[in-house]
Each structure stands twice: as C-alpha cells, then as structure tokens.
C-alpha cells in the first residue's frame, strides 16, 4: 500500500462537515433511483409529457421596455412621462419608393393613399398619430398679403389630374415635409406609424410577430410591384424579423444536434450511449421550455439561444456519465451495476459543475435589464433541469441497456494500449512542459488584456446590429438615412415644469439656449422642440419674415404661436416639453459625450421651475443601457467568478485546486473579450451574457478533469502518470465534447441573424479554448503549484 503525498492523515472537520450531507443525499438518491426504477421512470415520463405540452405553447414575447434598464434614472424618467411621449417610443416607418421618376404621378399617389389607408387599419397603430402626406394632420402653410394660408397637403380637390399633381408638388414644398415625410430627392414618401405598446382596448401587449407579418402581407407584398418598392424600418420590424429568423435559428440548432449525434456515435461506438444522452438532453430542453411557460415567460430574441446551451451542457455532462458507465462496464460490471457505480462516482463533480453553472447564471440577475434577467432565469432553470435529466434519468435509462459490446471493446483496447496519442500531452504535467504552458498562457493573457482594451460598449454599426448589414432591414434603414434628413438615432431630453408652465417665456427661452448649447456638441445632427414651433409660427405670423424667428418675450404672442402644436412636442397638462435630438450615430462614445454635455447643462440650469431630465428616444435608451452595461459587465464577471470559485472551494477544499480550475477560465474570458474587440462586436444587451455563459460551460471541464486526476493522485501515481490515465478516460470525453459542440456552433456563422452568427463565433472560441485550458493548462498549473509540495515529507502534505 503506497502512501501518496496527496493523502492526509485525517480529513479536516470542515471537509467532513461538508461531505456528510452530500454523501447522505447520494446514498438516498442512489437507492431510490436504482431500486424504484419503474416508478421513477413513470414520474419522468409524466413530467415530460406535461411539460412538453406546456413547452409547445410557448410564445415569442418581445417588449421594448424589457430591453432597457428599468431602474436607470433615464428610463425611470421616460417611464414617468411615457404616456406623454407617444410617437417617440415605438414606431414603424413605411417608405413607398418610386423606382422610376418621382412621386408626383397619379399611380404613385394612388398607391401611397392606399398604403396609408392600409396602415390605418393595422391593429396596434396609434391612428391619431399616423402621418403621411395623405393624412389630414400634415399641412402646408404660406404667408400672403392677407395673412396666413394653409391647408392639408392633399387638398380636398385633389383628383389625380396633372394640375392637382402640380398643386400637390407646391403644397409639399410649402409644408416643410421635404426630408421628413418626403425624400430629399422627391422619389419616395414615408408613412409614419406610431405604435401602442399595449392595445388601449384590450390591454394586451403588442404582439410583434403578428404586427410584423401583417405589415409584410398587407403592405409590402400587396403593394410592391414593378413600379413601386416598399421599405419598412422601426424597432417593431427588427423584432419581427428576429422572430421570423427564429425559424432559421431552429434550423441551425437542428444541424448542430445532428452533427453531435453523428460525432458522438463515432466517438463512443455505442448506439445507446449516443441516443440516450442526446435524448435526455433534449428532454431537458423540453422541460426547460415547459417550466418557463409555466412561470409565465416567453421566448424573446435574446433568449432564443438558451435551449441550445441547455442542450450543449446536457450533452457535456451526459457524455461524462456514459463514459464512466462504459469504464465500469469494461471492468466487468453489468449495466445495472455499472450505472449505479457511475452514478456514485460522478455525483459530486456532476452536481458541483451543474450547481456552478446554475448559480453562475443566476448572478446575471444583478444586471438591471429585464431581458438579461429573463435569460438568467431561463438558463438556471435549464441547468437545474439537467440535474434531473442527465444525472438521474440518464443513469436510470443506461442501467437497463448499458453501452454496447463494441463500445466496451473500444474502451478496453484503449486502456490496454501501450502508447497512446495522449502521451504527447503528458509533457505538460512535467515541470518543464508546465512552465512552457503557463508562460504561453501568461503571454496570451497579456495579448488578451491588451486587445480587450479596445472593447467597446454599445453598437458599433449603423442600423440594426442584430441583423446583417445586407439584410433587408438594414438596406431599408440605410435607404432612409441616405434620402431623408432625419436620422433614426433619437435622443430625447425632457424639460419638465410645473403644470401650465411649459409655454412660459422663461421655459422656452431656457430651452432655446439649451438647443444652442447642443449645436456645439459633436455627434448631434440637429434638435427640435416646441421652441422651434414657436419661433417658426411667430415668423409666420409676421409674413414669414426670418427676422421674427425668435421666442417672443410677450406671452400672448407665444400663446398665439402655439395655438396648434403637433403631437409629441408637449403634453396635455403642459408640464413636459420634449427636446428631440437627432444624432449622427449611436456609438457609445457619442452617447457618452452627449449625456455628459447635457448633464453639465442641466447641473447649471436646473431649477424648481424647469428641469432637464434625460432621456427617451432609442438613443436615450441606448445611452442608459450602455451605462448599465459598462458597470454591469465587471460586476457580472465578479459575481460569476466569485460564486463558481466558492463552489469549487467547497467541493475540493483547496485553494490551489480552485486556481487550477478557474485560471484557465479566466484566460478564456479575457481572450474572448479581446476577440470581441477584434471582431468589432460591442458589448451590448445581446452579447453581455456571453462571457458569463462561457464561464458556466467551461467550469464543467475543469471540475471533471480535476476530480478524476485527484483519484489517480491519491493512489500514489505521479502527476504525469495520473494525468495520462485521466486523459484516457475523462480527458477524451472533454476533448470530444469541446470539439463536437464547437463544430455544432461554428455553423451558426452562416445564420442570417448576425446576432446568432456573432454568438456562434464567440461560443466556438470559448468551447475550444476552455477545452484546451482544461486539458493543458490545468495539469500545468497543478504541476507547478504542487511541485514543491511533492518533495516534502508526507506528513506535511495536506493537499487533495
């Protein structure tokens, strides 16, 4: 009997205190599971059917408000005044483009009219705020010797004749809508469709998928023809496109599953050992979606990937279990015994790994954005479910059938082989190789830290970053930006006053100087507010004379100039005056600069009578989101690593072990950030959780490998020997899982949804690098950290 430096004399009090309950739970579960197989199986089947029934009813559930950080001061301000800021939240813009010629033709105007009418009837559209040159709320004005003249742009006498069209052209020019509702080159016109977040009649949330498909069928498909092209932009369309893209997302999942199936069979050589783990993982997905439905969640475009992650983690664990069963069977046990022994063997590392995954995902709840919190819930539920399906159901099913003879023969052959391809890797378990590996890791760390400095927060590209640059949506969006004067990046500052004070001279004059202040802030294209309305109408009341285009000091003149105010410039109780700021872009640095500039102005000029509050508008929300994400990303990583480290510490009861397991993960996280910076992927709501997810998935490898390694070490093997034995068993599973999942995920690069493609690249990288880290860096660190200990006497050694 050899005494190894890795065995201590007596286990510490803490160790037995921790292990006691774990071992007890294992005994109880093991007995119930393996002696009451039929009842347990029955329960599982019932649950699967019940949850499956729930799962198929799960619906997409996207909401604008869920994607913005609800406790951020900007968003709180927005939510306070939400009802008064209609049209600034959610809206669609439909562009009707004349392929040849301009819009002043009978057929085009006819089409435009019909599309406007069509838009009017689409459910969810705020009809009173609908705007196109065909709606009565769009008017022209002119000054004559007699005073003002004005009327709707489409006059009642319009009859499609050439004279009417000439009149229409004049009206359009006089209406000031060129660049807003009519393109600068007069070849297209826009219908602006503001949307209700909640249907005012039924109170139901806006269903983006239905809206998007209605708009597609009723407008684009119906009216697009040889002469006319229809383009559609707006948040609702993005969401609709993403939800539609869910089908392709599902297709890519299916491909990844198929690839996993094939590769797993080639690796294990066992039909049951392939079908059962994959089957159990799919059951886990079904349970996860069913539970989410029961808890009242839906699928939003960002949590669409969670089912696949659940599948991936499930397979990862399943392969470990099956491999252990195969090992037991190769030593002569029958399926029942092998399953039972494997269950006991894997219990602690499996549970720890899944617990780390789960708690790691739960820490995402610290981020104040509901979409991410929902993701946290979905992922933790998924991991919890994997405990049931892959740690309980899987061994149960395997106990009936075991792995096939072919698989057992394969395992025995590899165990008996004298030289193994894994031999090469044992060099890293020796001091010299370990130093090389660790040095390389340190260099990589340096490269990663350097590269990740360029990591940007927020969107880096124009348009909708979730979709490809050449996607129909982004092409449409680029068209609007190119041909119209209003950018789609809007930042709204809310000037709040006491009721009925929003039109007072003092308010307007301060807002006027605010808008002047804004002209000097780089990144701002222009701004518009009630002040502009007042100034223009005041000039209008004076024959259009530009010299009168100022805020009058005379309140009666102001009141006269504001007798008719278009919607969205003030609220009903005249206590809110939005200043709508159009930005050049929505890059994070632009938003930062603008927020800071506005905050400076507000600090200097806020008083009881007038406050400048941020922010609304899509860029306002993005500023808030970037703000939250900026701090959140480090908070999140701190929590994830903290939780995972503590769990590993409780399991392995050794700080050095924790270092061996966590250090490779940390390296992967840093490199992943550098990769994101290199690929131009910004940290935003969609990509923020990626790194936490990577930690969650990667910690499994380290825990399994270290557990197995330690088994051989306590038997007295040297580190290289123990490591080789580990590689042949657990190591090969880890390598297989990492590679297979990476291959499955790398195909996502071809997805039409850029968000999924980005995720594909990042997840591929993390799967592979985590795998390499666990296989190479972990033993290297173990070697270096324990090296000097091995030389000490046995009594001093106190390391597991």
């Amino acid at each position: 009997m050899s005494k190894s430096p890795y065995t201590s004399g007596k286990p510490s009090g803490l160790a037995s205190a921790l292990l006691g309950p774990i071992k007890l739970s294992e005994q109880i579960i093991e007995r119930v599971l393996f002696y009451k197989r039929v009842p347990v199986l029955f329960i599982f089947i019932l649950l699967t059917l019940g949850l499956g029934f729930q799962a198929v009813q799960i619906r997409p559930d996207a909401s604008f408000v869920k994607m913005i950080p609800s406790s951020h001061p900007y968003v709180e301000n927005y939510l306070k005044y939400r009802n008064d800021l209609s049209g600034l939240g959610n809206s669609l813009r439909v562009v009707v483009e004349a392929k040849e010629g301009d819009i002043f033709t009978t057929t085009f105007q006819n089409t435009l009219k019909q599309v406007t009418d069509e838009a009017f009837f689409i459910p969810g559209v705020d009809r009173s705020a609908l705007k196109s040159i065909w709606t009565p709320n769009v008017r022209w004005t002119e000054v004559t010797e007699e005073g003002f003249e004005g009327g709707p742009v489409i006059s009642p006498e319009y009859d499609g004749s050439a004279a009417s069209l000439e009149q229409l052209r004049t009206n359009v020019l006089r209406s000031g809508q060129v660049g807003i509702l009519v393109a600068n080159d007069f070849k297209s016109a826009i219908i602006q469709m503001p949307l209700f977040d909640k249907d005012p009649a039924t109170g139901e949330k806006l269903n983006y998928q239905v809206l998007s498909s209605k708009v597609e069928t009723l407008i684009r498909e119906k009216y697009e023809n040889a002469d006319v092209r229809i383009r559609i932009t707006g948040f609702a369309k993005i969401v609709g496109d993403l939800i539609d893209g869910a089908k392709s997302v599902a297709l890519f999942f299916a491909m990844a599953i198929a690839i996993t199936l094939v590769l797993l069979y080639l690796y294990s050589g066992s039909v049951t050992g392939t079908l059962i783990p994959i089957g159990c993982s799919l059951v886990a997905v079904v349970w996860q979606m069913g539970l989410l439905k029961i808890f009242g969640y839906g699928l939003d475009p960002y949590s669409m990937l969670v089912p696949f992650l659940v599948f991936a983690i499930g397979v990862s664990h399943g392969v470990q279990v099956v491999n252990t069963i195969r090992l037991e069977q190769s030593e002569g046990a029958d399926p029942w015994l092998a399953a039972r022994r494997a269950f006991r063997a894997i219990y602690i590392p499996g549970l720890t790994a899944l617990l780390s995954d789960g708690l790691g995902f739960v820490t995402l709840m610290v981020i104040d954005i509901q979409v991410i919190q929902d993701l946290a819930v979905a992922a933790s539920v998924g991991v919890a479910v994997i405990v049931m399906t892959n740690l309980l159901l899987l061994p149960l099913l395997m106990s009936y059938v075991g792995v096939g003879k072919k698989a057992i023969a394969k395992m025995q052959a590899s165990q008996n082989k004298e030289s193994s391809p894994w031999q090469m890797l044992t060099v890293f378990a020796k001091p010299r190789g370990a130093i090389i590996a660790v040095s390389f890791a340190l260099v990589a760390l340096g490269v990663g830290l350097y590269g990740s400095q360029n990591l940007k927060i927020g969107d880096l590209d124009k348009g909708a970053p979730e979709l490809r640059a050449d996607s129909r949506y982004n092409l449409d969006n680029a068209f609007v930006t190119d041909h119209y004067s209003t950018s789609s990046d809007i930042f709204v500052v809310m000037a709040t006053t006491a009721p009925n004070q929003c039109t007072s001279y003092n308010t307007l004059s301060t807002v006027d100087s605010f808008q002047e202040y804004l002209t000097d802030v780089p990144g701002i294209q222009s701004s518009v507010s009630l002040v502009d309305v007042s100034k223009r109408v005041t000039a209008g009341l004076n024959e259009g004379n530009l010299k009168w285009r100022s805020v009058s000091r005379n309140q009666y003149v102001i009141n006269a100039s504001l007798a008719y105010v278009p919607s969205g410039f003030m609220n009903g109780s005249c206590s809110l005056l939005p200043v709508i700021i159009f930005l050049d872009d929505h890059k994070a640095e632009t938003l930062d600069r603008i927020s800071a500039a506005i905050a400076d102005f507000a600090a200097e000029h806020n008083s009881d009578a007038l406050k400048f509050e941020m922010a609304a508008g899509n860029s306002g929300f993005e500023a808030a989101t970037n703000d939250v994400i900026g701090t959140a990303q480090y908070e999140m990583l701190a929590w994830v690593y903290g939780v995972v480290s503590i769990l590993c510490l409780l399991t392995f009861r050794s700080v050095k072990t924790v270092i061996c397991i966590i250090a490779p993960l940390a390296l992967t996280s840093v490199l992943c950030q550098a990769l994101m910076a290199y690929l131009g992927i910004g940290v935003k709501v969609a990509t923020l959780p990626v790194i936490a997810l990577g930690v969650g998935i990667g910690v499994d490898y380290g825990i399994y490998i270290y557990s197995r390694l330690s088994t051989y070490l306590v038997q007295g093997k040297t580190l290289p020997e123990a490591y080789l034995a580990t590689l042949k068993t657990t190591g090969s599973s880890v390598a297989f899982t990492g590679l297979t999942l990476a291959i499955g995920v790398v195909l996502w690069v071809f997805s039409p949804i850029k968000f999924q493609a980005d995720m594909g690249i990042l997840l591929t990288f993390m799967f592979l690098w985590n795998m390499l880290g666990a296989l190479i860096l972990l033993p290297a660190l173990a070697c270096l950290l324990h090296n000097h200990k091995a030389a000490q006497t046995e009594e001093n050694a106190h390391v597991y």
Partner: protein
Amino acid sequence: MMFPSIPQIMIKSGGNMLSVTKFSQRARWCVGFIVMAVTPLAFAAMDRIETPSHLSGRAAEGLLLDIAHAGDRLVAVGDQGRILLSDDQGVSWKQVQAPVSVLLTSVYFSDAQHGWAVGHDGVVIHTEDAGDTWLTQLNGRQLNQLQLDTYQTLVDAGGDPQAQDLPMDELELFLEDAMVAVEEGPTQPLLDVLFVNNQLGFLLGSYGVLLKTEDAGVHWSVLSHRLPNPGRFHLNALLVEKQSLIIAGEAGVLFKSDDMGDSWIALESPYEGSFFGLLSYAGQGQALSQVLALGLRGHLFASEDSGDSWQQIAVDSTASLVSAASNNNEVMLVGQGGLVLTGKTLDKLTAFEPQDRRAWSAVTRVNDGWVLVGEKGIKRISDTALGADHE
C-alpha cells in the same frame, strides 16, 4: 423642420388684421402681462439680454440674418447672438462672442472699425475694433425707459416743437404705449441699423420705433412719433439715397426724410403688402441710380425719383424678396424659398439654382462673387458659378 399648422383665425381673415388688432390689443396685453411680469425673477440669471452668446462649432450653419463689410472683413450676425467674422472674402469664418444671446437682425459698419448690430429685445451692440469685441449700448429696458422719458417730457411740455402737426392725443397715445412697454418688458425687436458716418446713425424696429444717435450710440433720441405711422407698422429697412433717408416697412409703408431724420413724410406706396429691403442700384446703361423696394410675394418696385413714384418690376416668383446687393451694374436679389435673382438690368433678372429652398435673409458682394446668409447659414456664390449656371 416641423412646419406646424396655423391658427384658424389667421387663415384668410382679411386685411391688416394683424396691425389693427395689435393696436387695440395692447390694452388687453398690458393686463395680462402684468401678471406674467411677476413670474419668477429667478430667471433673470438666464436672460438673453445679458447672457453672452455661446461659442459653437456650428455657428456658421444656423440662422443668420445680416451681413456687412467692415473694410475687407465680412461680419455676419444672427440667431442666439452669433457674430461671425471672415477675413478671406467669406471662405472661412470664425465666431466671436457677443454680450447678448438675442436674435441679431441687422449689422452695419460705418467704417472698417466701427460697427453696430441690433436685434430682438431692443438690443444694440457696438464694436470699435472691426468686430473683435462688442459692448451693449442699449437694451430693451433702457429703450422702454427712454421712450417713457421722451414722451413724458414731450407731453409735459405740451408737444414736440419739431413735430407741430402731431396732435396732443396722438402724443398721449405714444406715452401710454411707452408706459405699457415698460410694464411689458424688453419685448420689441429692432430690425435695421444704418450709420451715415461714425457718429450719426439710426435704428428702426417693430411697431414703428425709430431712434437716432449723433454720438456713435452713446445717446439715443426717440423719433418714432415723427413718422406719420398711425398704424404703428413695423419698420423694416432704411436707406440713404442721395441726401434723403427712405424707410420701408410693413403693409407697404414708405417714409422719406430730407433732414436727416428730424421730419418725415409718407410716400405714396405702390403696394399694400410689406416691404422688407431697400437698395440703391444703377443697372447697365443707366446713368442714375434707382431705389429698389423689395417686398412680399415677389413684389419688386423701382423708383427713379427717390421714392416719389414707383414702377413695378416683373419677377417670375411669388416668394418674398428680402434683401439685395449690387456691384457695378450687377444686382443680386434674395428672398424666401431659396429665391436668388441676378441680372445686369432689372428687366433681365434670372433665377440662380432654384432647387435650393433655403430662405435667404441678406446678401453682400465680395471680390469674386457674392455671400448670402439665411436660414441655414452662409453660402458663397462665385462669379464663375453664376456664369456657369446661366449657360
């Protein structure tokens, strides 16, 4: 950007409703405004009359209303108290700070160093170093007080010896208005400024206000009552033509003074719509210069006899003409809706780049072209571009 609808009452409701009702509404206004005048004086800190203009990188892109020469230098003024200087004939501009943030409506330099700019809230600012630095000479409050003092004195004295024809009740009306104005605050914009030399200058503005200075703006005297302007129409432009002063204003009013502004007569107006600008111009082949009056809805009139009689010039546009400049025989007229007309004679005016719909406010001549200012900032039109467009 967002062009709103108009109050229904204003649509085609006839005549000079604006001016007449303004007159009778003053009484009503004064009641309401006393209430308003009491509103938070805490805001005095942000008062644009006293707040220096904000230096902005995009100052040259906003609303600019007038442009003048100070020697070789160009000076443009406009919204929020922006003052821009160019020393390279309008190619590049730099902003200097003004002591006010009001909309500046007009600027004039009597020589390369001395200039005056006027604007809303009764503001007058003055520079003695070619526009590098400016000081406020007059603001609306002072103007109101000046008016009040002037009319109080005149009423107490029983009349203005230099305006014998002015009945007492008219003068008392002026006094009443002055009292109301003091209550209302500095609400009246000044619309034009012109200095005959470094000492003698005139300001005109809304509701018929006319001021004269003989000491470069240190002291001002109120001459509004000397104009036969019972409708209190806005005075938009002032021109020195030969030895006379001509004023053109709202509703087609035209006034002329032969004694440097002490007394004025009303000229017979050829048009009932407003005039916005005046120019002295001699076309090709003309020995004597004419006075051009630019007005509402494409109306252009020329007078060969210093305003006593006018002939309408045909203009192929219904956009208002606002300002004009000339160089030798060439004249450029600018106006609303991007209207730019040029020509060597008045009967051969052609439009330049009709697609640009920016409203113009003023134009001046530089060495190799013209510089325009207006709604969206500054535009430079070179002679070559002009020539190319005409082909």
